[in-house]
Each structure stands twice: as C-alpha cells, then as structure tokens.
C-alpha cells in the first residue's frame, strides 16, 4: 500500500499542495481528480521523488519510501516525448536498464509489450515518426517497465483513442489483479467513474473528498425523486424536507430530518397513485463540481 501523509509543497508564497493525505491500497485503482492547478501533478512528482517535499511523508508498505523503492515504481510524467530521434526499441531498453533490468531481459520484455500494443513491426522506427496515439503507447510501455511494484500515472489517458484506452485499461487491470496499487490522474470523470475503485478529489492544493465511488455518491444529504399520478404541489407543505425541483407531477426533495421521507411516501399513497419513489445518488461529476466549487 502506498500512503501519502500530510504532504505539503510551497512555491514561494504559494502553497501548491497543502497537507494532502490519502492512500492507494494494493490491487486498487485510485483516481486522482481536480481542476488544472489543483496540485495533482505536484503531488505525484513528490511521490516519485522528482520534486522535494516541504512537509509530510510518503510511506511504502508501512515504512518511509526510499530511492530503491521508487526505482521499482512505474511513472508516467505529465508531458511526454521520450527521445524523438531514437528508435523506440532502443530507448525502451535504455529506460528498462536504468531501472535495473539486464539488457537481455529488457529486450525480451520490451518486444513483448510492443507486440501487444501493435507496434511489433515498428521497433526500429524513431519515436517522432509514430502517430501521437502510438507515441502514447510507447510512453505507457516505458512506465510499466520492468514489472512495476506500483504505478503512478499523470493523465495516462489524455490523447488516446477509445481503442487505445481499452487496451490501456486492460493492462492496468492486469496489474491491479496482481495486487499492484495504481494511482492515476484524469480529467475524464466518466472514465474515472468506470475504472476506479477509489477517488481522491483535490481543489486548490487541498484534499476535498476521498473514498470509494459508492461512498462518495452515498455521502451527503439524501435526495429522493417522487413521481405522482396527480399534481405534486402539496409536497412543499411537508416538514423535514426541502423541495429542490417541482415540475407538475414530479418532485425532487432533500431530506433533512430522519424519517421525513417515510411520512412523504405515506402521504403520497393516501392522496393517490405513486408512479415512482427513488433515492437519487448524485453523479460523480456533480460531486466533483460541488467539492471543487
């Protein structure tokens, strides 16, 4: 498990990351979301030791993280390019060797991954000759070499077409199945919702929400939608709840007093037909908007 404890980083008078804590449990995908400048990249760079830490600690498997631990991590920085004028096989082998693999083993693994991503025929091509999507694939391969102990990926899906997203997702799922913790940042909330077991929301350098997706969606004041056979105007007079929206026969209410929803449904059935009475869980995007507002 990767633990981030009270991490803080200042740039001059500006506090880019302010006492941020969260966990990336083994075998789970943790999504890291937040607006531009919220501090996601700075946090990830501190985790990877690329940027100094002003305060706080990063723990790996229960003890403070070391350089050798980080060497086993897969990391994908925000902006990418690798070496534009070097054949992709050569530079991937180079990166793998820097991470401590032998040349022979590195070549074998790189070949295997290139083939898997449909680049087996292009091993001698210079990176700059590949399409952007293919360059991204090469970047992904660079970050998972050698088989990583943990993955820290900054915007891994940006610039990928849907097919490439799927093969990336498959690959990441393989790693989580093997018990590897994965932390990735993204702007694509639908993707995050689909993929992630857990979510950390950052705003202005602070953690504003964290938890599993269902925890986050279940948190907050419960909301219900009521659809009646007749006019729903009477709902306004009920106590213990706020009406958020009223449209003819449909009402959206927020319950502030425990049990108020039970009185509401009893009253509704007394008055006539009830077509629908349902708990409304906010979409991730709504939670995100509220948390970062």
């Amino acid at each position: 498990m990767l633990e981030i404890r009270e991490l803080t980083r200042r740039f001059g008078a500006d506090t880019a990351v302010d006492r941020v804590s969260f966990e990336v449990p083994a075998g789970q995908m943790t999504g890291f979301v937040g607006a531009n400048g919220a501090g996601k990249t700075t946090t990830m760079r501190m985790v990877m030791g690329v940027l100094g830490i002003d305060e706080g600690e990063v723990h790996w498997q229960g003890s403070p993280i070391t350089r050798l631990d980080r060497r086993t991590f897969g990391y994908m920085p925000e902006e990418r390019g690798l070496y534009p004028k070097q054949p992709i096989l050569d530079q991937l082998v180079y990166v793998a060797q820097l991470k401590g693999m032998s040349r022979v083993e590195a070549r074998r693994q790189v070949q295997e991954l290139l083939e898997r991503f449909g680049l087996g025929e292009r091993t001698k091509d210079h990176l700059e000759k590949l399409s952007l999507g293919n360059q991204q694939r090469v970047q992904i391969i660079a970050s998972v070499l050698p088989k990583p102990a943990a993955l820290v990926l900054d915007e891994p899906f940006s610039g990928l077409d849907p097919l490439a997203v799927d093969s990336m997702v498959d690959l990441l799922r393989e790693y989580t199945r093997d018990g590897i913790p994965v932390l990735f940042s993204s702007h694509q909330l639908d993707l995050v919702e689909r993929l992630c077991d857990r979510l950390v929301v950052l705003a202005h350098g602070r953690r504003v929400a964290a938890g599993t997706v269902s925890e986050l969606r279940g948190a907050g004041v419960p909301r219900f939608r009521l659809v009646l056979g007749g006019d729903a105007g009477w709902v306004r007079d009920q106590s213990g709840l706020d009406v958020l929206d009223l449209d003819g026969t449909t009402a959206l209410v927020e319950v502030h007093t425990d049990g108020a929803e039970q009185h509401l449904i009893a009253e509704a059935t007394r008055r006539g037909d009830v077509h629908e009475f349902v708990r409304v869980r906010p979409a991730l995007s709504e939670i995100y908007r509220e948390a970062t507002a």
Partner: protein
Amino acid sequence: MSTHSDRTEGTEPAWVLVTRREVVSRITDKSFLLGTVLMVVLLVGFIGFSAWQDEKTETVTLGATPDAVAMASAIVDGAPEVDDQVKVTLVELDDDAAAEAALHEDEVDAWLHPVDGGWELTSESSEQDALTDVARTVVRQQVLADNAAGAGTTVEQLEAGSAVSTAFLRGDAEKAAVAEAVGFVFVFLFYFAALIFGMQLASSVIEEKQSRIVEIIAAAIPLRHLLAGKVLGNTALALIQLLVYLVVGLVGLSFTSYKSYVPALSGPTAWFIGFFLAGFIALACLWAVAGSLASRTEDLQATSTPLTMLMLVMFFGGLSLDGRSQVIASFIPPVSAVVMPKRILAGGVEWWEPLVALGLLAVFAAVTVAVGERLYRRALLQTGGRVGLRQAWSAAE
C-alpha cells in the same frame, strides 16, 4: 567498467548506461558522421594541395631581343639558385614587334628588354611573380658586378660588413613558423570541439528536460549519474573526433616537406590531448548547466551567452597573447587549456610548467563539476520558464 558481480546481476552502473547511449545515439547520427568525414576530407585535401604546391616547378618562357639575350641567359642560368621551383627557358626574338606578337600569341610569358636606367619585364596582363623575383635578383647581381668592375672594385668589397643575419635563441625561423601554425590549429580545434559538442550537450539536456523523460530518469537513477554519463559520453566523442583529426593531420604532414617536424610535434600533441581532456570536461559541465537552466531550446541562446563569451575569450586569448601575458595566461584555467600547449610548441618551457598548469586546470574542472552538478540537479526539474543561476543555486530540491 562492469565488475564481475555487476555482470552476474546483469546490470551496469547507471552512468555507464547513460554514457553508452550518448555515444551510440550520436555516433549513429548521420549528420555527425558526415561532418566528421567532411572535415577529414578537407584536411587531407588541404595537406595534399599544399604538398603539391610545394613540389611543383613552374616553367616560364622568357623572350629576349638580341640586345637583351645576354642578360636573359644570365637569368636562365641564375634561376635555380634564386628559386629552385622556377625553371626559365629562353626564346630569342628578332625585334620589339616580334616580341609583342609573341606575347599576344602566348609563345612567351614575358619579354625582357632594356629601358632608360634599367630593364623592363613585360607580360601580357598577369604579373609573373616567380619570374619577376628571379629576374630582379639576377639583374641586380649582374649590374652590380658590372658597375663594381667599372669603379675598379668588386661586389664583395662593396658589401663587406653590411650583412644582417637572423638568429634565434631557441629554434629557428622555420620551426617557429611551424609552431605558430600548429598552435593555431590547436586553439582552433579546441574552440571548435568545445563549441560544437558543448552546444550538442546543452541541447540534449534541454531535450530531456522538455520531454520530461528526465523525470522518468530521475525517478530511476541519481541525477549525478545522468550528468556524469552525458559529460563523459560527449567528452569521449570529442576526444575520438580530435584524435582522428590529429592522426590524419600528422600522417598527412609526414607526406609534405615538413615531415622532419612530425617527431618533434608528437610531444606537444600529447600534452595538448591532456589539456583538451581536462579543459573539455570543465566546460562540458558548464554547458550541461546552461542546458538545464533553459526550459525550451529557444532559451539556450540566453542561458549559454556567458559560456560562448568565455569560449571567445579563450579563442582570441589563445591566438593573440604573447610574451609575459601569454606566460601568465598559460596557468589560468580554462584559458590555459589552449595557451599552455601553444607555449609547449614554441619551446622553452620548463618541465614543471605544463604539469602545474594541467594540475590547476584539473582542480578547476573538479570545481566546475561540483558546482555544475548542484546547479544542474536543481535546475533540471524546475518547470515553467528559464531558471536564474541564483534561483537554481538556492532552490530546494
């Protein structure tokens, strides 16, 4: 330098990997290879051309009307003594009109005839330099001898005690000229290599910084290893190129009339390689810093200005300093890297002087490596715009 235990693990120290990548990626680069080959071709061509120039004899035909035949014959006979590369043949002509016609027809290159108070050498439009020199000397000797005889004396008596000969306390004139020329080549080679490879090093640092591959590398290995590998890789490349040029140059020289100097040049050349190595490493670290301070290739111009200034100072200092200032500069790093080899070439250097200068240069290199490493490490991971020197020095990592 992988030890046995390294090999069993199958891994090598990070700096070795970086060095190898620098060398291999550059040496397989077409523009680098092409540049080196072109330079060698130019070098061989230049040496070949000068050798051919040295060897060839110029044959000129000199026309003379009957009143000038005696003098012209004297020139033909005297020519080899004055300039062994000029061979003069005599063509006898009937009169002035025939002479002018012969000039027009290119049957003769020049026409010698007496004029008031002397002689004139007429050619069609281009000056016959070699012939003119020969003619002047021979005519002067001849006329002087005639005049002396007329005055009842001899040329030897007239010239007695008037000779000014030159002597050098060390070496001779030709040797000094060769030393000067080779010294220029040393200064030029150093300047050329330090600038080309320095720029290359700086832009490869920017490339890594800009593409953020440096973050992947920084997460995997200490940045010290990255810097060491880049500096060593580029030093190795510069050294290989330098050795190629020097070997081609010296071998080429041995085919020319200067071949007797080749053995004497090998000592100073060996010193030069030593000074080149220390000087280049010192400057390479600074070039790496210049690269790390920039955030885009466009910034390099600005961040490398102090360095390019330093290079110019070294270049012109190396070329123009002499006397006491040259002696002083030959101990001051990094200028000593070019000035001391020049002094060694000229001769008259005490045995300990190059050692002291090289020692000082090595100390200077150690300082720039230490300072450069700190600046490089701190500036490299700063993103967003150019980094100031002071900012880089004091930045938190």
